[in-house]
Structures are given as C-alpha cells and as structure tokens.
C-alpha cells in the first residue's frame, strides 16, 4: 500500500497567531523579538517584513533601520503553546499518526483513511479548510508518499493551498529543484556542489552513483542519494510519551554577569520544580542549554544527584552545569532548563532512623512559598538571588 503523508505548514506561525487576535497587524511588517534591546535577535518574520529585507536572525536594531515602521512583538510562548495545542487537536481528528515537528509544522500519516476522508489531497484540503475556519490561519499543505517530499511540497506553496505529488513521481518532482532543497546538505557541501563541481540541481545529484556521491558526502552518500531520488523512509512518529518539564528565558539584550545569570537560572529551576511538585514527580535527569548572543549554543546534561522536587536541591546540579556550559565570556541571550525521566518519589523509607532536618526545613519553606504564590500570584514572594 502506498503511504500518504500530509505536511501542514502555517507560515510565520507566532505572527499569524498574533494576527488572529489583533487584526490591525494584518498586511503590516511584523517581527517577533525580545523587546527593549537593540541587539536582540529576530525570532520570526512576517512575509511583509521579509519583503523589506528583514530576515530571521537579524538584530532588531538593524531591522528597525531597514524598516522604521516595523511592528515588534515580544515572544509569547503561552500563545504559541496554545496555538500548537489547537493545531494538534485539529489534525488529531484525521489520524492517530501525527507528528508535530516545530511550532506551525505537523506531519500526518493518512494512509488507509481514504474511506473516511477521501483521497489524501482532499483530506489535506479539508484540514486546511478546518484550520482556516477554526483558527483563521492560512495553511499550506504538501501531500506525498513520504515526509521529506510532502515538506518540500508545502514549502513551494506561496501562502495557502495544497500541492500533491503523485506516487512514483517523487523523483521527477525533486529533479528540477535547486540542491538547496535537499535536507542534510549543509553549507560546506553545498558550496562544494555549486562552486567546485558545478552541480546546482537535485537531478544532477541523483544522476551520480552512490559510489560517486561518497566523494562528496562520505558516509551520508546513500541517504543523500535516496533523498535526491525523493525517497524518505522516516515514519511519522506521534508525540513522545516521555514526560518532561522545561522552562526557558530569552534575555533582553545580553547578559554576561554570572550573578544575574545564576539568578535567572534559579528562577527557571524554581518554576520547573514547582511544576514537578504539582505533578508529584521527581526527575532523574536534568539539562541546561545556553545560547550566546553570537548564536552559538552549549548544552550539558547530568543525572540528578538527589532526586526530589525541591528547587534548592535541584539548583545545585544546574549550577554545576551552568559553569560547564557557560565557559565563554560572550553574553548569554537564552537559557533553557529541563528535567526528564520523571517518576513518583520513592516510597522506600530509610532503614535507619536518620532524619534529615535540613531537608524537612527546606520542604516546609518551599511549601509555604507555594501556598503564598497560589494565593497572591507568582511575584508575591521571591528569593533574593532572583531579584
């Protein structure tokens, strides 16, 4: 049986979501970036802003010079999360096999659902219509026999609509495209293809044997050759059932002062641990990702030394990770903390009557703080280091 994969793509997802609530933003150049910091990096760009020469990754100061009328919106993770949830709910009606790849991108495996939804391209059209009606979002949908081709097909649609690639025609669909469309090529190899071997189209890559492609792509030759032929065996994987808790912060401007950064880190740990306590779980593994202002990233993870949901205990591990991850002087722009391998606390009691008074005391303090926050809001009580 042929596979039918649909790739749903909502261009400039965070901005499109904002526009659903704020119609005055329509047809205006809009970007998402942390506010009040000229050196902040732009995270999302509306097509209107793109036409003014603004691109993702540009500094806000520069973008404002290009386009003084630019509307700058702050990142709204809650709205994006909500949007993702609604999008997931909308597509989940059509198939149990759906995979959210990034915000605004979802793959659906609709193989075998013809009797329910008709042909795959009709299903894609219907999904687009539903999302358009429910959420007022423009949807571009690519339909093909695999994830890669459906994704490329959706990118070829200017704003909304469906592009269907017939079964068996993946290879001829890919052939006239630029090598830029091949996933996994990378800057260096792309340069080699274009400027050393004069290979600019996918069909030229497809014409080479796997043996020849090894000269360019080494061990990835077979993969690239398959991709150039329009073959992608990757299955659509439903969202992982492995639970995790994470919190992140995008810093306004840059920060390289350890005292302030550790304060922020503590804030993130505090929020995570509160969620863990609410869920009654303890983590076994913790991780930290740091992104510097020059976009370089460092990620470190560790096994939690004393699994418990207390922020004071969890913070000690994260502080160690911080000094490993943040070895450079360059300012930090983004931090993300996560905890995985969640499980209920061990019911096993200690064999000996060793009472951890300090731990009990911390537990009391944490509990008291949680109660205050529940009643008066998150900002009602804070540790000095997070101020």
């Amino acid at each position, binding site marked *: 049986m042929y596979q039918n994969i649909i790739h749903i793509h909502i261009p400039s997802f965070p901005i499109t979501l904002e526009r659903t609530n704020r119609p005055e933003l329509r047809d205006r150049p809009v970007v998402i970036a942390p506010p009040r910091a000229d*050196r902040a990096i732009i995270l999302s760009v509306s097509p209107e802003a793109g036409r003014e020469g603004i691109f993702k990754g540009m500094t806000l100061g520069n973008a404002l010079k290009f386009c003084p009328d630019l509307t700058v919106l702050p990142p709204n993770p809650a709205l994006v999360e909500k949007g993702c949830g609604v999008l997931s709910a909308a597509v989940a009606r059509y198939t149990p096999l759906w995979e959210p790849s990034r915000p605004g991108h979802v793959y659906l495996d609709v193989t075998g659902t013809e009797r329910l939804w008709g042909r795959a391209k009709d299903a894609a059209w219907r999904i687009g219509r539903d999302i358009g009606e429910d959420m007022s979002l423009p949807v571009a949908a690519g339909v093909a026999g695999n994830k890669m081709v459906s994704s490329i097909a959706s990118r070829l649609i200017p704003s909304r609509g469906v592009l269907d690639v017939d079964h068996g025609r993946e290879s001829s669909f890919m052939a006239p495209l630029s090598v830029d469309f091949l996933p996994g090529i990378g800057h260096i190899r792309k340069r080699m293809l274009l400027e050393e*071997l*004069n*290979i600019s189209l996918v069909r030229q890559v497809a014409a080479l044997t796997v043996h*020849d492609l090894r*000269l360019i792509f080494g061990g990835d030759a077979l993969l690239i050759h398959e991709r150039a032929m329009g073959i992608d065996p990757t299955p659509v994987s439903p969202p992982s059932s492995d639970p995790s808790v994470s919190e992140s912060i995008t810093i306004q401007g840059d*920060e*390289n*002062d350890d005292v302030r950064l550790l304060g922020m880190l503590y804030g993130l740990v505090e929020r995570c641990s509160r969620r863990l306590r609410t869920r009654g779980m303890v983590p076994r593994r913790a991780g930290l990702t740091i992104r510097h202002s020059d976009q370089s990233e460092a990620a470190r993870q560790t096994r939690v030394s004393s699994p418990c949901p207390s922020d004071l205990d969890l913070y000690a591990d994260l502080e160690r990770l911080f000094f490993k991850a943040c070895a450079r*002087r360059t300012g930090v722009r983004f931090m993300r903390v996560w905890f995985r391998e969640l499980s209920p606390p061990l019911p096993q009691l200690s064999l000996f009557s060793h009472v951890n008074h300090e731990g009990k005391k911390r537990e009391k303090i944490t509990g008291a703080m949680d109660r205050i926050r529940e009643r008066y809001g998150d900002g009602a009580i804070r540790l000095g280091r997070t101020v």
Partner: protein
Amino acid sequence: MEFVHLNVHSHYSRGWGIGSIEELCLSAKGLGMDTLALTDTNGIYGMMFFLEAARDAGIKPLGGSEIVSEGGHRAVLLVRNRTGYANLCRIISDRNCHNGFDLVKGLAEKREGLIVISDDFSLLKRLKRDSVEDLFVEMSPGYNMHRCLAFSRSSGIPPIATNRIYMTAKEQFRLHKILRAVDLNTKLSRLGPEDICREHCFMNSPGAMIDQFPHVPDAVENTLKAADRCLKDWDIFTLTFPDFEGMTDKEAFERLYIRTMDGCRRRYGEVTRPVRDRVEYEMSIIRRKNFSRYFLVVADIAEKASRSCGRGSAAASIVSYALGITDVDPIRHNLFFERFLNPGRMDPPDIDIDFAWDERERILDYIFARHGNLRTAMVANHNTYGARSAIREVAKVYGLPEQEISRVTDRIGFNWRLKDISDDLKNHPKMRGIGFEKPWDEILKAAAGLESHFNHLSVHCGGVVIVPDEIRRHCPVEVSANGAQVLQWEKDSVEESGLVKIDILGNRGLAVIRDALELVKENNGLTVEHPGWRPINDQKTVEIFYLGDTFGVFYFESPATRQVLKKVASGFTFEEYLMLDHFLLNVVVTSIIRPASNKSIKTWVSRLHGGHWSHIHPLLEPVLEETLGVMVFQEQLSQAAIYMAGFDAAEADALRKVVTKKNREKRLRDFYERFLRGAAERGVAPDVIEDVWQMMMGFDGYSFCKPHSASYTMVAYKSAYLRAHYPAEFMSSVISNGGGYYSTLGYISEARRMGIRVLPPDINLSGIKYTGRDRDVRGGLMQIKEVSRDSLDAVIHERKRNGPFGSIDEFLKRTGRDMRLQDAKQLIKAGCFDNIAMGLKRPGLVWKAMQFFDKKEKAAEPTLFDFTEKYESASGYLPGRDNYPPQVMLKNETETLGLLLSVHPLELYRDILSRMHHVLAKDLPGHVGRRVAIAGWLVTGKTMLTKEGDPMKFISFEDTTGIYETVFFPRIYNRYCHMLNASRPYIIKGKVEEDSGTINIAVEWIGFLDIHKGQNRCLPWGED
C-alpha cells in the same frame, strides 16, 4: 622624608598595573615624596623610562623587580649596586627563560647586591641561613599582615612596610579589574579575591601609610633604611661595544685600516689624495673613539648578504663605503662624515643596514651563530594597547560578540587615540550607522583608560645587540614565540643604556633588484650589474624620474613622491633636466616629502624653477645653499645651530634629537637661551634669530639625513634602470616581493598600462614567484591562496626533474604523494590546468582530483609496485560537463588568487559605465577646471590633518586607462569617509585641478557603481 614606597608597579606589570611611570613619579612628588622605587613584575621593561621620568620629576629612583616564580614563591628585589643590577637581570632572565625556575635557589646563588623583601616565609627562612642583611619581611595591609609580623618577630628578620601599588589613584580600581579580566581571559563576575589587588593598593601618602603601622613603627623606618642602601645615581650604564675575534684595540684598528684601503682600491681604482685624506681623517676619529671593532663586526655581517644598503648617517663614511657596508661615494656626493661621527658625540654610532627582506632571517642566524646567545639578543618592541585592541579586549570582558566588536574596531583608524576622541567617537562620521547601545559607554571609557598600557613584548624587526661579555648582565632577556632571545628593552632604552645596537632591516627594494637581475640573466644571459654599471648616467633611467613614472621604483613610488617628481620636472625640458645634478635633486626629493619638511615642497620647487629668494641670514648660506634656503635634511638643523649660534657638534646633535621629541618644551628652554645668546654674539638681529629658531622648531617631524637619502636614491636609480630597460622582469619582481606601496592588483594594472601582458598561473609555465620575459608577466604559483608551500615546491621539483605535465592524471600521479586534495582543487580553480585539460572543464578536473585522493586515502599502505597505477580512475562519469557560470569563474578567481587577474574589476561594470557620461583617467588633463564624473577602483590613500586639525584624505584611484589622484577636503571627507575602505567600484564626481604639472580631482561626491548592477536606466552623473 617619612616613608618610601618600595613595591610599586607601573603598567609594565603586564595585566596588573594601571598607570604610567610618569604618572607614578608625578603622583609621588605631589604627595611630598622624594624617593620612589619601581618594581614591575618579572621585568625591568620600564627601567630607563623611570630613570628619566624620576629625574624630570625630581625623584630619586630606586630600581628593582618583583619576581613571581611558578612554584608560588615571590620576592621584591631592589638593586644596591652594579653587581646587584647584574644579578637582578640574570634572575629575571632565568625566571623568563627556564620553565622550572626556582626563585629560592636563584636568590641563594645570586643575592649579592640585592635587597630582598618578601612575605614568602620558606624563601625568607632559606635566605636567612646565609645572612639576614638586606633581608626584610614584607608587611602590606590586606596581605596577612599579622602573620607576617609574627613571623618577623619569631625569625628575627626585620619587617618592612609596603602598599603593593598597582594603581596611581583609587578610582582606577574598576579599570584594574577589567585589565585582570582581560589578562585572565575571563569576565568581571568570575574574578576571585586573589585574582585582583586590594582596593587600597594605590599611591598612598606617607602619612596614610604610617597610620597603617602604628604597632610596627620599625616597618616604616626600615623603608628609609632600605632606600638609603639602594642605588640611586644609576651611573652603571656605559657604552658597550661588541668584540671582534678577541682582538685588542690596536689589532682591530690595523685590520680595519688595511681592509679600508683595500676597499678604496676596489671602489676607486686608485687611492687619490682626497680619498686618502678622507680615510686618514675618518680613521683618526674611529681610533680616538675606539670604534674599530664595531666597524669590523658590521662589515662582517654585510659581507654575508647578496646586497645591502647602508641607512642613516653611516652612508656618509668612506670607511663604510670601502667596507661595502654602504654603496654611495661620500666624496662624489658631498656627504659629511661629522654627521655620523664627531669627536664630541657621546652616544653610540648607529650603523643600520638594509638587506633583501627574505635574507634577513639568514643574516640574523649568522649573527647569533657567530657571537653566540651568551652575547647576543634581539631588541624588543613594547606593544601597548592601541585604540582597536583596547576596545576589543574590554568589549570581550563585557560579553559583546565578535561581530559587534568588529563593527566598531574595523572603522577605527591606525593612529586614533581614544584619550583624545573617546567622547566624539560615537559621533565620528566613520561610525555612521553604529548604534553604540549600552554598555558601549562604559566600554569606551575603560578602553580609553587602558590605551597605551603595556600588552606584550615582541621582537623588533631587526635591532640586534652584541656585547663582549654576557648579555644577561646588561638587560634581562626573554625567549620570543619564534624562539629568538630578546631583550626586555625597546630601542630607545637600549640606546639610553649605552648598548650598541645594529639594525638588520628587511628591504623589499633590494630583493626586487636582485630578482630582476637574476631574471634578466636567465632570460638574456646578461649580467647587468658589473663594475661599470652607472644607472645615474643612463638617459632612460633618468627619464623615469623626469616623468614621475616611478610605480614600483624603490622609495619613489608613492603618489606624493610621484607628484613632487612631476612638479620638479615641470619647469625643465628633459635636456635641461639631464644637465642638472638630477641625483642631488632626487636626494632632496626623498627627504623633502618626509613630515618634517613636506610643507616646504612648494617653496623649494618654485625656487628651483627660478623664483626669487635669498638666505634668511648669510651665516646660514653654507648650511642651506644646496637646498635653496629650505631646511630639508636632518643634519641641517644641527648645522644651523653650529653656524648661527656657535653650538659644538655634540650640543647641536642633542638639540636635533630634542626637537623631534614629544613634550620637548621644557628641555628646549635651555637650548633656546643658548641659541639666543650665541646668535646675538655673532651679531644676528633678534627678529632673524626668532625666524631661524621657528624654522628649526618647524622641522619637528620625521626626516632623513642626507647620507641616508643618498643611499636610498642610489638604490632607486638601480631600480629605475631595471624598470626602464627590463619592464617585465622588473614588474614581476616587484609583484613577487610584495609589500610595496600598492596592492598586487595595483601593480598588475600598472604592468598593463606599461603594455605588459599579465598571464594567469600555469602548472607548466609558472614558477613559485612571478616571472617576466619580453612583454609578458606570468602569474606565480605563490599567488594561489591556501596552497601549502611544500606542495608548490614539490610541483616545481617534479617538473624540473621529469619535464612538464601532460594532463591532470599525469600531474596527480607524479605529485599526488606530496599534495593534498585542497591544494589540487585550488590549483584547478585558479586555472593552472586549463592548458592541459584535454577537453575537460574545471568541474571535471576537480572531480578527477577528488577521485584520485579518495582512492589514495583508502589505500592502506603503498604496495611494492607503483601505487599510482593502482588508483587509476575507475568511474567514467564526470559531473558538471559545462564550465562554471561566469560569475562563479570570477568568484573562484578572486578566492583562489586574492584578486581578479584576468580583467580589471571595473570591466565588470562596463554596461553601467556605458550608460553614464564619464571621463577616462587618461583624458583628465583635457578637463582641467571642469567638473567631471569618473569611475575608480581605490588603489591607496593617506589621511592627513589640516592646520586646524581636521582630517582630510588623498586617495589614488585607477580606471582601466590610468591612475589618478583625488583630494577629499575635510567637509567631503567627513561626509564620505565611511565609504572609503571598500574594495568596490566607485563613481567619483569632482573638479579637475592642476598644480605645477600634476592633476588632481577635488572630490565633491562619491557613490558605488555596483548598486546599479542589473538596472537598465540612464544614470544621472555627467560632466557640467
């Protein structure tokens, strides 16, 4: 006096000290102290400056150093006498040269003549075993003072109070922390307490210090006792000459005399009376001053090079000429020996020699081998933080990303001083478009504070010192990154201390002459340089100077010099010019364009062309006659003082040196008084005295002495001879040796203007260097970027051994063992295989190379048989049957060669230029007085300051027909300076002006041509 600071650090305590030596001395004086020590960490880099600054401030200087060794031992050492100084230098040298240096052991062996102050108990205990004399326990507030006191009492070693000064003032603490973060490559928030000094470690008043030690008054008293025992008059520095083969003075003199007479016979044919008299005169002074060995050492070095050129005043000596150190006949060209040596001169003679730049290393190796590391060391440069590096380092501490830092530093000019402009930097026209958001304010302020602070030691480009005994007793040495033994002092300190320095400098012009002569010999079998070679008498050579066609000619190629040559020639026909002493004229030109005298160019040219003039006073007639009453040469300043005011030679020479120094006013006062008195005694009117003094004071920039100018002009004539007679060989040598006034592209354009074809590199026809023959210059393989020199050498070697390559396959088979894929790709993309491609295009050649190297890599080990056969390409398929698109071809050419060799970059904009009215460079003389638009590619430029201090710029542009000069006056420069660094095509609009035969465009507007690429409309620029 109540207290003496004995642990004081200036900015020469690398990464720790804030504040200059002058600031420390003035601060100490201001606080009522009359004695001060300088004890920089692990060095005496600033010792000679300290002695001078202390003298100026009225402070008694105590010298020493704080030694911190790797094992954690530390001690402050103060010099008591000559032996102590030698021991200090040896200890510092050992500390900096040996990894496992042990301070305790070092001090135990070399403690004589030193006062030791330390809070390192193990070190003190060990030294106490020998003697407690001149040994003190250091007590500093904030540094375990109580433990130190307890140790002092228990051990019986007397205490001494210090403040461990790292700052001049308290406010500098923040800057100190920034400097520490720079030094430790960390950020401010990660500095621990031991990483920085204490907040109170600044120059405190004696009263404040005494208040810190009410419980140990003897610690304060001991500072006075220790200071009293230290060396204060510093009369230990005397002239130190190198030794030559262990000869006595008499033997050295006799050897020098014999060699001089032999040299004269070789140079002159026969030794005439004037020659003999000159030799006798010079030799008598050399004998009196005991300089024979020095001459022999220098001559011995000069002999080792293919050619050399004496610089400076040494070119005025017939002894130098006879020994082959210099190449200018001092008798024929009227050069005075007294400028070089005179009986009254107290400072060491200075013989500097230029060698071909690529032979310099070999010469230095010879010197070190001949005299040994025990006696020889290179002179250092003190690299301090400039505007760029200070901003860069501070911004890194503040966490700014590289890209953002470069946006600012890339626009900072070479000589910018943040202290002068930091407030205006943000508003500077060059910084247009940069936001300077927070925290740039703090960064710029801190960077201004850090500017001029010692950063690191580097090796001077050629200064070498040879002593007869042991170099490490004269000055501490370090080992540079490239392994050379280098002194801790830069050239001024070396000279001040009496060490005689020999400058071995690299000169591209000499290498150009050498290479061009070799090419001529290779091409035509001719030996141009024979004893009768006289470029001065060659008409075609003289014509080069007459026309100002000196592009590539040593020292005469800058736009300013070429303009002066044209101005000089504009008043004469070529026949008249030939009749003049054109060599002397050009000697004057080499010096008059220097900063000290370039303001007099117009006056000198008008007088040369017959303008009315008279001497400012008859007494100056013998001094300024040959330069038409204008002060041009360095020695004319001192001669004016001698003739006008009766200065003796040494006094006049001292005056000449002071005039060119910064902060000269104070020192000039005495000279001025002396000059007034002397001139008045000779009956000179007060207003004339004042005029002459002002003329002398105006001669304050960098200038040449006449012998130096003559020596350089002689090299220039040889260079011009080769340009005139062998242009292809000459231009290829100019490009190969690089480093000239213009970029490679500039020289290639000039070669084309000379009617020479410039051909691309070819795997069978190119050498490593550029080669020239007849009217062709062939690009050298050296031009290809990112190819290792070893690979290129292997190609040339293989080609010489087994003949040219027939195809890419053959090339890979024969050279594959010594090549990397990247090398082969670069050669292919540069077009080196186009002539043996056998129908393949460049992408196909790259593919073949990739196949070959892939198989080579996979081969586990070579077989017994010829492995290259084993890797014969198996795949018949070749990707990219077509050649690269034109834009990729040009991109590859730019990337592999670093420039566009096949066409002039402006040719790429021919379509745009065809749609606009513009003039060509060759037609500019026909548009004088009119406004024109002209296309241009930036060749070179020079920023100057007007009398009002406003910046303006002279820029040379070229189009496909010629090179032309433009002037950006301050208002226009201010508007466009941010656009003036790009390698982009310009369109320039301005008024064409003529001045004494030279054409300039006074620019009114500039824009970029490339922004109109792809547009199809008529462009608005045009002639009025």
